[in-house]
């Protein structure tokens, strides 16, 4: 389980950004998590809570937006949402779609702070 390592990286990044923007208290950290990121959402949420203890982010929530995989279909010549990471191919014409456009993200998007 590497979600604890990922959680620590998120906390480090968020703490750095909070300091940079002069935020005293972070209520939540918003994250985009791709279906091909290799990170399990539930394990990450669990790890985040644990890893926050004793840090400036203690008590903050991790809000995860799950990002589906999209890939460019060379036959339809358009970007398509891929139905399953077990079949990286166009859901319309069935052509293999090696060019994955999104779905690998582990991206810090925003910090929610008290108004």
């Amino acid at each position, binding site marked *: 389980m590497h979600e604890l390592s990922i959680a620590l990286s998120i906390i480090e*990044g968020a703490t750095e950004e909070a300091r940079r923007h002069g935020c005293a208290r972070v209520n939540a950290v918003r*994250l985009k998590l791709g279906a091909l990121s*290799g*990170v399990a959402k539930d394990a990450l949420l669990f790890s985040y809570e644990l890893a926050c203890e004793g840090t400036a982010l203690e008590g903050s929530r991790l809000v995860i937006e799950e990002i589906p995989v999209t890939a460019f279909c060379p036959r339809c010549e358009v970007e398509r949402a891929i139905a399953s990471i*077990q079949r990286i191919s166009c859901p319309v014409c069935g052509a293999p779609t090696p060019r994955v456009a999104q779905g690998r993200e582990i991206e810090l998007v925003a910090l*929610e702070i*008290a108004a």
Partner: protein
Amino acid sequence: MSSTPRLVEVRRNALKQNDALARALRDRFHEAGVYVASMVSSPGAGKTTLLERTLAALRRQWRVAALVGDLATENDAERLARTEAPVRQIITGTVCHLDASMIERALEGWALDELDLLFVENVGNLVCPASYDLGEELRLVLLSVTEGEDKPLKYPTIFNTADVAVITKLDLAGAVEFDLTAVRENIQRARPGMRIIEVSAKTGEGMEAWLELLTSRLNPRVGQYARRDD
């Protein structure tokens, strides 16, 4: 007290530090003219045996070395050291994957420009290594015939992050009734267009194609200068 949350946009990769370090490593490898190939697989897929045979075969013509990650023991490094290629062990403790900082630390004091090819053997794990860029040029995912044909569908993410799939222990395929056609299909489903190599490090079957795949990527000019005299 008003509680409308205020949003501060940040937009940064959560693994920014690792990725920046991996990029720096990649630049360093390019400058030094060393090709770096990493290997991932489940425990027991035959990474170390394949590496042993590969180092021994390539050492005659190329300057090869290996970094091997393991949770606890130095057994792998000891086995590989018998090939007389330079080998360093990275003991990760409880950490289930290598990251770029571990590679950077392990390289301290190593003259990279004296190498043509460096292998990085990841910890045996098909899940955790997927998220970490190590600065490698080529990521190999190994799958032994004893593991079953559906591994690529059970672990599609790691297959999707890899460049080449290596099916190992080919000599056992008959004994375990391994369906090569099915595994090839499953690999293509998880990673369309992926190159597949099938080998037995034990009998040598497929080793020629495997070694060719590696050496075709090495800089021939550098290799020529590097050619050993023995």
